[in-house]
């Protein structure tokens, strides 16, 4: 009886030691991963900063102006071209120019579908 109890106790001791050992190694591994990730984040952050600086350098007004002068066929904005939105004239009423032309030709009355009457689509007269 005692012998069995001893055997179980020793077994439990060894098992728990093994578990703690593996746990410790997992912790070390996780800590390493965290450090690695932190370094990675720091490196990425530095890289982002370099890119920001590069972007600011490439979009600096001096360079954009030189490129625009060289590449674009555009005039500088004149002050007369700036107006407030409410200063714009009202949009003109939509004009049906075809309809108006037909009306002036006196054809508007007949603009209804040429009589799809008894004789079908083909007009009977003319």
């Amino acid at each position, binding site marked *: 009886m005692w012998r069995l109890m001893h055997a179980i106790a020793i077994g439990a001791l060894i098992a728990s030691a093994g578990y703690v050992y593996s746990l410790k190694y997992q912790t070390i591994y996780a800590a390493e991963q965290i450090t690695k990730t932190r370094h990675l984040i720091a490196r990425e*952050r*530095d890289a982002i*900063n*370099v890119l*920001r*600086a*590069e972007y*600011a*350098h490439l979009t*600096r*007004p*001096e360079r954009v*102006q030189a490129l625009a002068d060289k590449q674009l066929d555009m005039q*500088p*904005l004149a*002050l007369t071209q*700036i*107006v*407030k939105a409410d*200063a714009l004239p009202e949009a003109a009423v939509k004009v049906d120019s075809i309809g108006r032309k037909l009306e002036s030709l006196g054809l508007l009355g007949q603009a209804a579908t040429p009589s799809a009457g008894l004789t079908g689509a083909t007009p009977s007269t003319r």
Partner: protein
Amino acid sequence: MDPSDAHATPPAKASAYQRARTLATGLLSTRIDKSRGRIRLLMFGLFAAYVGIGAKLVFLGMSREQPQTLKVAADQAASGARPDLLDRNGEILATDVKTMSIFAEPRRIIDKDEAVELITAVLPDVDARELRERLGSKKGFVWVKRQVTPKEQNEIFHLGLPGVGFFPENKRVYPNGAVGAHVIGYVDKDNIGIAGMEKYLDQQSLTDPHVAGFSVDPASLKPVRLSLDLRVTHALRDELMAGLTKYRAKAAAGAIIDVTTGEIIALESLPDYDPNDPGDMKDPTKINRVNVGVYEMGSTFKAISIAMALESGKVNLASRIDARDSMRYGRFTIHDFHATHRVLTVPEVFTHSSNIGTARMALMVGIDGHQAFLRKMGQLDRLRTELPESAEPLAPKHWSELNTITIAFGQGLNVAPIQALMAVAALVNGGNMMIPTFLTRTQEAAAALSHRVVSAQTSESMRYLMRSNATHGSAGFANIPGYYVGGKTGTADKIFHGHYSKDKVFATFMAITPADKPKYLYMVLYDEPQGLAEDGGYHTAAHNAGRVTGALIARVEPLLNDPPRSEFPTQPFPLIARLGYGYDADRMGKE
């Protein structure tokens, strides 16, 4: 004699073996009568050990040289992180990027001569003799080369030298080059501010890069927002540069200030420098002329003199000033540049830029009143802004009536242009004086730290005068339609060997937009501009600084989110209209 006694005493001549044996049995025996000696031995041993430890502690405490770890040494030597500098819209003006630097630990280098040879083969720009000296020193840490390229780093790495390593450092970069350089300033190799706002940041000691040897976490640094607008600053620099070549001037400078808050929106001084590579900054032509140069501001100073006369109550807008003849004072004669030879009203004195008229007005106020007013306007004391650079104005030591006469029209008192800018801003913004700032400032904060120097009515009179000078005075070139501009020119003859030169001038121009409720004040300066043939050879400020300001207003105002107005204000100057002479400035000239 007891024979047993003779047995107990060890034989006089015991063998070595026997002695070792007795010692061993003695040590291992657990007889109680032996323990006293052992305890004594143990006590002595422990006592000796503790004395030893104590002595070592005292020795460590006394020693001057603290043994430092490599990490600490590198951190102290490496350039620390600095906060980003942003413009008012959040564009980057200055930021840190990481670069690698090569260091060496001389104690760990085995063959120093070989190391020097190999390193200089890879890095030819490193001086071999100097490097050998550094490696021969007793220090634990020396730099080999700062801020190397990745290629150089790789080559050094492949040399495989023991005791040579790499350490990441922060390098300050200015993506916009020379734009705004005089405000931003620059840093040295250790990322310590040398000039401009960079130095200001260090003076705040918030960002001391080497506090007690621990490096600042870059993520904890909040970016600092300046009052500058990058795009406007570029436009200012571009226009100044164009004028500089066109009028073949020696130097140029300009600034734009928000008169409601005192924020400097743009500031440039030409010739300038690239803060990424400042080179030798001993060159006196590259100073910040707005803050550090002191100049006779010429006729732009008349604005201050007339405001003083109006504020004193001795003169009002309808007063008439005699300018029929040149003014004599002792052996000096004061002339008008655009002589009218008649009695002038106060607005006419301003628009004709009459020296005689202004001098007479200043004399009405008197020497003491003049000095007191100039002091109140900040013209006699050094103006300190956030920028570490500033200059003391040059005022005459003995202030006579003649000084008051000449200073009234802007000669005989040298001030930094930013002082004149501050004074004119206060004159036009309703009379509130505030120190210009290079950091962002809200209207409330500005109101809290400003103080009144002239009445609202005087301020409105000044705006009225500047507006009328734009419609039919010397500021016409800057009268950009849609912005209701007001302005004042100033052309000061430069002094050479104690005489005023006629052909070398210092041209200034100040303009406000819009004159009825000013938001921005523009200042443009040219040092020794040349007259152009198409201007009839005139080198007066209207033709150079005035034209440039006009182009600048047309270009900058839309950038500042200020569209041109299609109609003029109906009642631009209500206070002086109520007093009777306030028909609006646009009509005045036609009468």
